[in-house]
């Protein structure tokens, strides 16, 4: 990348050439990039070779921009901006040591701007360096008293430090600007002080303002429990989720928009999906598709998210695109077939599974889904008992299990071979019991009456 100044780790200086080579081989991470001015800190640089190409390209450009800005004629603001951009980028990729040094340099160069101590404070808050975070947020507020996000984050730091008096003062002051956040903080303080009624009031206020903050239901439950109101506590526990109160914070939210590369965008999307933040998950997966239009994983995840959002039309569109890119993707074929079946499009579902199977040998799950459709689809015109039994038996012989025995039973019913079907179902029940799956065994037992009297 043509940097003129790099410095190895000080401990390595003076080692023999052979030792140096050995250490280089063993070191997946890079060097420190010397500061462009003497009063600044070196910035640790990751090993760009081990990083996904679009990310490495971004980082390379950001380090290059710092070097370029370091020319003698550049203003302090220009150099600060370059370090700040590098810091943000490193921060977005959780390269904390790189981000810390870059922010510190930006702050040294531009000491009257609140942005750099604020971002540095946020970094310290994330990594648990609470006293450092407090100092940086204090500095950010000195430089820019209107930056209420700094006050909000400082309030959170006080909570973590158990400095309840300072936290209370801070949250009280934030009630106008961040009402849900302030109410949740005041509720937490009340809960810690065992003022359960106050806590309930604050948490209720917070939830009224931010119903998506479903994690607050847990706190609310603990407050009800403290009052001995256990039924209400249980009800709140049933409602608990992973959503938290968010403050509008363009500076911090902007970090995530820097993330590039299909791999990382997928990770972010999956994290949002797992947290139940489906709209954000859609945004991440869409961004991943923009970076890599043929990404099967991104389109699959996007389709799955649409299913969870109750938008089957969009999900079908994504799954169909996946199968155009990779016709042998049997899991997507199954998901698509299920969606189509739910919309009574059984013939299309069967065609999708058959096509997927034609690309390679049918996986057990695909064969089972197809067999069940051919044996028991509500639209009798698409059924084919002979084919269903052939598929079901092949799967059962390969992987004997309760579920696969039940599929055989369903196919036999379609062929009118009731006695054999009942035997197969009894085998499924026995296998479920042996596996300790009592719920499955009970479900299968409930099917038994249907296998009597000519499978009526």
């Amino acid at each position: 990348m043509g940097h003129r100044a790099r410095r190895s780790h000080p401990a390595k200086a003076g080692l023999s050439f052979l030792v140096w080579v050995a250490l280089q081989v063993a070191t997946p991470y890079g060097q420190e990039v010397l500061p462009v001015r003497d009063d600044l800190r070196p910035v640790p640089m990751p090993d760009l070779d081990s990083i996904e190409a679009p990310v490495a390209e971004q980082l390379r450009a950001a380090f290059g921009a710092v070097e370029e800005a370091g020319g003698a004629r550049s203003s302090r603001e220009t150099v600060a901006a370059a370090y700040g951009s590098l810091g943000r980028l490193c921060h977005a990729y959780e390269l904390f040591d790189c981000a810390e040094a870059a922010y510190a340099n930006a702050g040294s160069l531009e000491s009257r701007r609140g942005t750099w101590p604020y971002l540095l404070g946020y970094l310290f808050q994330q990594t648990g360096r609470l006293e450092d975070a407090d100092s940086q947020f204090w500095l950010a507020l000195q430089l820019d008293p209107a930056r209420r996000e700094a006050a909000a984050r400082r309030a959170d730091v006080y909570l973590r430090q158990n400095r309840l008096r300072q936290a209370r003062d801070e949250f009280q002051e934030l009630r106008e600007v961040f009402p849900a956040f302030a109410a949740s903080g005041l509720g937490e303080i009340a809960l810690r002080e065992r003022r359960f009624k106050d806590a309930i009031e604050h948490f209720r206020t917070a939830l009224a303002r931010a119903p998506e903050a479903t994690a607050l239901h847990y706190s609310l439950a603990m407050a009800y429990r403290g009052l001995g109101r256990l039924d209400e506590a249980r009800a709140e526990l049933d409602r608990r989720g992973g959503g938290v109160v968010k403050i509008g914070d363009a500076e911090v939210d902007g970090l995530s928009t820097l993330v590039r590369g299909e791999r990382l965008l997928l990770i972010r999307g999956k994290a949002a999906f797992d947290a139940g933040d489906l709209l954000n998950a859609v945004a991440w997966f869409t961004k991943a598709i923009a970076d890599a239009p043929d990404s099967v994983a991104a389109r699959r995840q996007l389709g799955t998210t649409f299913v969870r959002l109750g938008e089957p039309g969009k999900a079908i569109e994504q799954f169909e695109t996946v199968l155009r890119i990779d016709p042998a993707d049997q899991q997507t074929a199954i998901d698509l077939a299920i969606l189509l079946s739910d919309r009574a499009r059984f013939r299309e579902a069967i065609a999708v599974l058959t096509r997927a199977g034609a690309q390679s040998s049918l996986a057990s799950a695909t064969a089972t889904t197809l067999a069940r459709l051919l044996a028991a689809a509500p639209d009798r015109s698409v059924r084919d008992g002979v084919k269903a039994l052939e598929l079901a038996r092949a799967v059962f012989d390969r992987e004997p299990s309760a579920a696969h025995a039940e599929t055989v039973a369903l196919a036999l019913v379609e062929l009118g071979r009731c006695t054999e079907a009942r035997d197969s179902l009894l085998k499924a029940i026995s296998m479920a019991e042996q596996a300790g799956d009592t719920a499955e065994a009970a479900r299968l037992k409930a099917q038994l009456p249907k296998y009597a009297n000519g499978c009526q």
Partner: protein
Amino acid sequence: MFTHVNGASGELLLPEVIGSGGALFDYDNDGDLDLLAVQGKTLRADGTQHSPTSRLYRNDLAAAADRRLRFTDVTEAAGLSVASYGMGAATGDYDNDGWVDVYVTGLGANHMLRNRGDGTFADVTASTGTRDTRWSTGAAFFDYDRDGWLDLFVTHYVDFGVDMRRACFAADSTRDYCNPAVYSPVADRLLHNNGNGTFSDVTPRTGLLRSPARGLGVLAADLNADGWLDLYVANDGDPNQLWINRGNGSFSDEALLAGAAVNRNGQAQGSMGVDLADVDGDGDEELFVTNLDNEGNTLYRSVGPMLYEDRTLEMGLFRLGFTGFGTRFVDYDNDSWLDLVVVNGAVRLSREQARRGDLFPLRQRNQLYRNDRGRRFIELTERAGAAFVPLHVARGLASGDLDNDGDTDLVVFNNSGPLRVLRNDVGQGQHWLGIRVLEGRRDALHARVALAGRKGPRVGRRVQVDGSYGTASDPRVIFGLAGDSSARSVRVDWANGRSEEFRDLAVDRYWMLEQGKPARAHPP
């Protein structure tokens, strides 16, 4: 000495960073604690590689004229060459013959090792019905049905096979170890001891299948004081479970309402190790759970029957940057207050350590917290001496008085590193009282022992070998007495519901307490 092998081959397979632990137990009944270290191995054995085995080290203290701590490797002589990919160990005398048996958990194979009483062990996994091919991590012997025979609980982690490996990435897109959430959780298992040398899998009828989770550390205790032993399981990324024993062979998870499932923000954590003790001297016991480095550990303080509150911050135990595994409450300075030890090691690669050339960049230091008279804990790591300086990838932590001098020593089981024995030279300056409680011929696991206070309330402890992470500890109870040298009385509440008081026990020595018999000095 023992060095753990995790079999890492560059593929970053999840099992590489999960093991392992071991056990402190007196296998030859000579009055001192011996040491079992559980070993890993290569995960892709091609049949030509030499697989290391778990090792048993005999403590030669009893025979040594100079009373110096010295161990001898007796693995082969004891017939204990277990060559599985081991995770942890549990100890208990399952056949009530007076010799402590061992259950070793692992990836793909667990082993029940019966102590024959002649210095050797028999692998009785098949004949006892304790075979388990799922990825097992923690285990605990406990008598859940009060029939006098120790049953066995085994935690399962995730559904993993080498061929199921996934490629996972850090936030900067580089390869890293996977979050266990990418693999399906597997329900834990309860094996009932039939009293005839065999066990039956009773899991399906206990209710334990209702909520499979990624289980790691486990301990048994009567947490709701109804006379039946319950279970607390630390789960990695799933809410922790508090399985209340209903006394009819079934269990129900009450952790959420009890306030001991998730942290104060309602979030499940990546929990690994667990311990339970009365740290504030109010008569009930607190739960401590170790978690990931970006979460911090959690202290659930008992505020009433089956009521816990996350009081980590208030008790001075909040600290990010350490991924905790093994943990024990021990009164290291014998001042009568239980202090806390946490051993640490990351599960995600440290870029900083990698940059310095570390091929296994997960190292962290261990932590020691002093209990300030039950009010809060103060971290003393920086002043804890050379033993707390080195960085390792620590997993298991076992505690016990290895040199029988009345203070608690520690054994740290490091992943891909040397086992470390930390001899305590602090506590021996204070007075103490050591208790071994027997129920029949075996240690009375989970019995409660209360020391009558000179002026204040009784100090309670439990006979506890389980908890921590993948380890079994000393069954003896040590009461630190600070400067008080007067004889003391203790009350024992056995797990079978009976209680008994033993009076005028002289201090600075161990006593053996058995139901209906006078106290005996131990060793005589």
